[in-house]
């Protein structure tokens, strides 16, 4: 593994009074970056699993009554945004610059929509209720704490993902990425999909599993 990395095609070495430095090629840097980002993802798994464990410890086989239509809607919105994200990445990798930028924009908008759904409606920021049940409050014991805790941590990740997308969009418009060199896009995409994967688990765990308590 190591030998392959140090003796790559275009790797060049430079030596001066500072000693010998191996200047990594783009591919080597890419490899390091990917590894680093994936390790970060694994690290965060422990955060989300901790939250899931808390949910099962406190809720057991019950759950609060939440609006099912809203849950399905936000989940779908995030999934669609994930699709547009990968579409953007495929586009830049094949030189479709316009498609790349447009897909990115769609991803961003859908991401914002997701936030509106969860934070705006589900958290009751807009004060709108659906159906006959009342909105969950953060102070509603373990139901409130876990629901707001889990969606809150996830929302923080969505916000940081949106920030990344925006940056990649701005840099992309300036022509910052090429078919061969677009680690920025790839990193942003991996992160965004990761946020989606987390929701893939959070959705059933918060909305579907267990019997609702009225």
């Amino acid at each position, binding site marked *: 593994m190591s030998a392959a990395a140090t003796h790559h095609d275009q790797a060049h070495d430079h030596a001066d009074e500072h000693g010998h430095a191996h200047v990594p090629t783009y591919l080597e840097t890419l490899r390091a970056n990917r590894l680093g980002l994936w390790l970060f993802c694994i690290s965060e798994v422990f955060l989300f699993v901790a939250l899931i464990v808390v949910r099962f410890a406190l809720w057991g086989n019950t759950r609060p009554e939440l609006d099912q239509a809203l849950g399905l809607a936000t989940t779908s919105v995030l999934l669609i945004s994930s*699709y547009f994200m990968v579409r953007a990445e*495929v586009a830049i990798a094949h030189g479709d610059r316009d498609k790349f930028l447009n897909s990115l924009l769609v991803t961003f908008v859908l991401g914002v929509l997701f936030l509106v759904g969860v934070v705006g409606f589900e958290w009751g920021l807009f004060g709108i209720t659906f159906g006959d049940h009342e909105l969950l409050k953060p102070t509603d014991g373990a139901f409130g704490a876990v629901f707001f805790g889990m969606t809150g941590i996830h929302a923080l990740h969505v916000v940081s993902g949106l920030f990344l997308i925006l940056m990649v969009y701005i840099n992309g418009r300036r022509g910052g990425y090429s078919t061969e060199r677009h680690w920025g896009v790839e990193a942003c995409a991996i992160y965004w999909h990761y946020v989606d994967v987390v929701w893939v*688990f959070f959705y059933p765990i918060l909305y579907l599993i267990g019997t609702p308590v009225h």
Partner: protein
Amino acid sequence: MEEKKSQAYQLIFTIFLVLAFLTLVEYLVSQYLDSMILLLLIAFLKAGLIVNYFMHVYRLWREESH
């Protein structure tokens, strides 16, 4: 080149359709079967698809040439 490109688009769209379908199945399972095991299995399946096809985890050990 062009062909490879449209293949790539097709692939991600197919995966997206599968994911959407699975999401629907999840919802229906919860409404009619209420099986936690099944729901978790579907979640893992969805996550696996995303990790493999959207996040390209295999790039960690298999470099593709551009």
